[in-house]
Each structure stands twice: as structure tokens, then as C-alpha cells.
């Protein structure tokens, strides 16, 4: 139990997997947040029935298992002959998945800014763009940031599913090591510790921000 064949090279292999996990998370969250901002502003701006198609499509990404979304997207890109790599496919799917949640966060945050504040801004002569960037954005950011941090961590954890498409991210790397060394518990514990170390400090930070900002409300 207390002896292991795990070598430094194997740890580097796991670290490389963690790097892939972080890269996918970074690309997906960046793309998803940009789309989420756009969709969120649209949803907050136009009437609910006009945004219905958008709401419906984004809702699909939240109501279908991510694994199925990944498999479907990969099958579709093969059928359509796009010839894009599984890595790019998973980044796109995860970005859309992120955007679906981010849209809700952005919309909620914008709607949390009191309408009177925005009207005051407009009646002082600010344009819609100025109102959005200088009044709504700073106020909405405080509402949105804790949930956004939670979303980012959620996407990082969900990115483990891309192993189904054959991408060697952290969890898949651990599977490879398990197959070779036959020490599942030990290697999985290391893998879990890596995930935990990536996620826990940021989750704590998010929780603290949320509490701190609630005091001033």
C-alpha cells in the first residue's frame, strides 16, 4: 500500500494533463463569457417574447447532458466534414455551454441595477452606451462576479468529460497511469488533489467576495 511505482515522469504527465484541462477551461470560459455578455445584454434589452428563440436555444444547452452534447457535436462535425480536431470541438461545445449559463448571470446582474438609476443616467444626457459601460457595468459586475467564478469552476470540473472524445486531459491522464501501474486509489487521490487545489482557493475567494459585497448592500 505504501510503496508505489509512480515516478516523477508520471507526475509530469499528470501535470501536462492538468495543463490541457486549464487550456480548455480558459478557451471555453473566454469564448463563453463573450457570447454570454452579448446574449445577456440582448435578453435584458428586448422584450421576453422577442428573446424567446434565443432563450429556447440556450436552455437546450442546460437541459441536455454535456456528454451527449460533446458526442453530438463530434458526430456532426464528422458528418459535415469540417475536419476540426476533437480539442476544438470540445472547446466550442464547452463555450456554448458556458454561454448558456453566463447569459443568465449577465441578465440577472443587469436587471439587478435599479431602473431609476439608469433613467437618472439617461436624463443627465448619457447615451445608452455610456449608461451601459459607466453605470450598469460597474454595478452589475458586483452581482455577477461571484456567480461567474462559480461558473468558471463548474466548467473546469465539467471539462473532465472531454476525455470521451479522446483528449488527454487530467482525468484521462490518470486513467492511462492507472492502466499501467494498477494503483487506482493512489493515482486518483493525486488527481483529485490537483483538481481540489485548482478549484478550492478560487471557490473560497468567490465566497469571500460574495459575503464582502453583500455587507455593503
Amino acid at each position, binding site marked *: 500500500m505504501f510503496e508505489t511505482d509512480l515516478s516523477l515522469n508520471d507526475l509530469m504527465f499528470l501535470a501536462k494533463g492538468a495543463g490541457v484541462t486549464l487550456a480548455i477551461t480558459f478557451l471555453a470560459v473566454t469564448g463563453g463569457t463573450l457570447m454570454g455578455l452579448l446574449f445577456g445584454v440582448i435578453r435584458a434589452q428586448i422584450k421576453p417574447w422577442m428573446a424567446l428563440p434565443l432563450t429556447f436555444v440556450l436552455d437546450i444547452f442546460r437541459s441536455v*447532458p454535456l*456528454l451527449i452534447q460533446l458526442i*453530438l457535436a463530434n458526430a456532426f462535425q464528422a458528418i459535415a*466534414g469540417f475536419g476540426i480536431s476533437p480539442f476544438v470541438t470540445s472547446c466550442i461545445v464547452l463555450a456554448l455551454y458556458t454561454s448558456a449559463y453566463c447569459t443568465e448571470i449577465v441578465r440577472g446582474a443587469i436587471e439587478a441595477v435599479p431602473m431609476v438609476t439608469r433613467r437618472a443616467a439617461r436624463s443627465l444626457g448619457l447615451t445608452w452606451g455610456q449608461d451601459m459601460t459607466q453605470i450598469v457595468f460597474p454595478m452589475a459586475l458586483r452581482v455577477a462576479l461571484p456567480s461567474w467564478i462559480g461558473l468558471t*469552476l463548474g466548467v473546469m*470540473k465539467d471539462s473532465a*468529460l472531454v476525455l470521451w472524445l479522446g483528449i488527454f486531459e487530467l*482525468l484521462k491522464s490518470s*486513467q492511462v497511469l492507472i492502466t499501467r501501474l494498477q494503483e487506482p486509489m493512489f493515482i486518483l487521490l493525486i488527481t483529485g488533489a490537483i*483538481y481540489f487545489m485548482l478549484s478550492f482557493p478560487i471557490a473560497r475567494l468567490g465566497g469571500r467576495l460574495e459575503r464582502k459585497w453583500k455587507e455593503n448592500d
Partner: protein
Amino acid sequence: MFDYTFQWRQAIRALPQMLDGALVTMQIAVLSMAIGVTIAVFLAVARNSSSRWLRAPATAWVEVARNTPALFQIYMAHFGLGSFGIYLSPYIALLAGIAFNNAGYLCETFRGALRAIPATQIRAGRSLGMGPAKAFRLIVMPQMFRISFLPTMNQAVWAILMTSLGVTVGMNSDLTGVTQDLNARTFRTFEFFAMAAVIYYLIAKAVMLGARLIAWRMFRY
């Protein structure tokens, strides 16, 4: 570029099989929620207790459940326990993994709800002669479930979606498992998984709608 003919008939012919799979999916989701809620109540009480020996393990459970992927937790149950000579079937491993995950998230939901219940109510109950356990069971718990009902149902939808992960540990009787089996036999990946996606979507929507109806029916004053 697009020289592929979709074969939907095959997928539709497999529909009864997939619906059987959906039943297994629902079964796992319901069981994992029942286990998760039960454990979560104890975890929430333990995390709020003044004893450090109760708080530490409960906090550890919640933080591990919330800060590692659900798939990792399922792997832990399926592959990890093998180190100790415990070999769980995919069904049990999946159930254990999801229940573990549910308990962690639901504990935080319940703790939030507990904070909304005034402490004076418990004191009133105690001064009427109830023991701490009875006061918790009769006064706090019903209110806690009421406040956290919709977040709990959200978690239930998550549990349904998480059951799809079973296929990665060799589960072949739930909706995703059945679909993957059909896919392995026919290679009509897109058609079969599109059907599965529609079924998952309908189940998730039905659960959410049902929850709204129950909440509206039961929780109005």
C-alpha cells in the same frame, strides 16, 4: 461536403429500448436524490454544530464534493475502491458517485435555508418541552425543505444529467448506456444521440415543470 443520409427510422425503431433506459436513468436519479437529501440533512446539522469533530468531516465531504468533478467521484467509487478489494458494479458506483455529489451540494442549499429560520423558533419549541431532535424534526425541517424546495429540484435535474456519466464506467442499462450500445452496433452516432438528447431534454423540462406546479400548489399561503 455533406454527403451523408440521416437514418432516422433506425433510431425511431430503437425508441422503446431507449425509453426503458430512460426509466433506469430516472430510477438512479430518484435513488441518488433520496440518499443525497438524507445525508445532506445530517451534513448540514453537523456543519452547524459547535463540536469540531462533527464539523470537520462534514466540511471535508462538502468541499471535496464541490471542488472535484462528478466524473472523478464516480471513478473513485468504481476504480479507486478496487485498491481495497471492493469492486462496485457500474450501477452502484454511479449511484454512489452521484449521491456523494448531491449530498455535498444539497448540504450547502440546506445550510442556506437553515440560516433563514429564526433561532427563536427553536427556543420556543424547546421551552414547550421538546428535545433538540424533536424541535429540529418538527419545527426546523419542514421549513427547511420548503425554503430549499426549488434549489433541491434544480439539483434533481443535475442528478438526471449526471447519470449520463455512467457510460464512462461501463454502464449499459441507462439512457446513455443504451444509446452507446446501439451506437456501437450501428455507428449511427448522430441519430441515436440526438434522440437521447431529446429524451433528456423532455425529462428535465417535465421535472422542472412538475416542481413549479408542486411549489405553486403547496407553498402558497
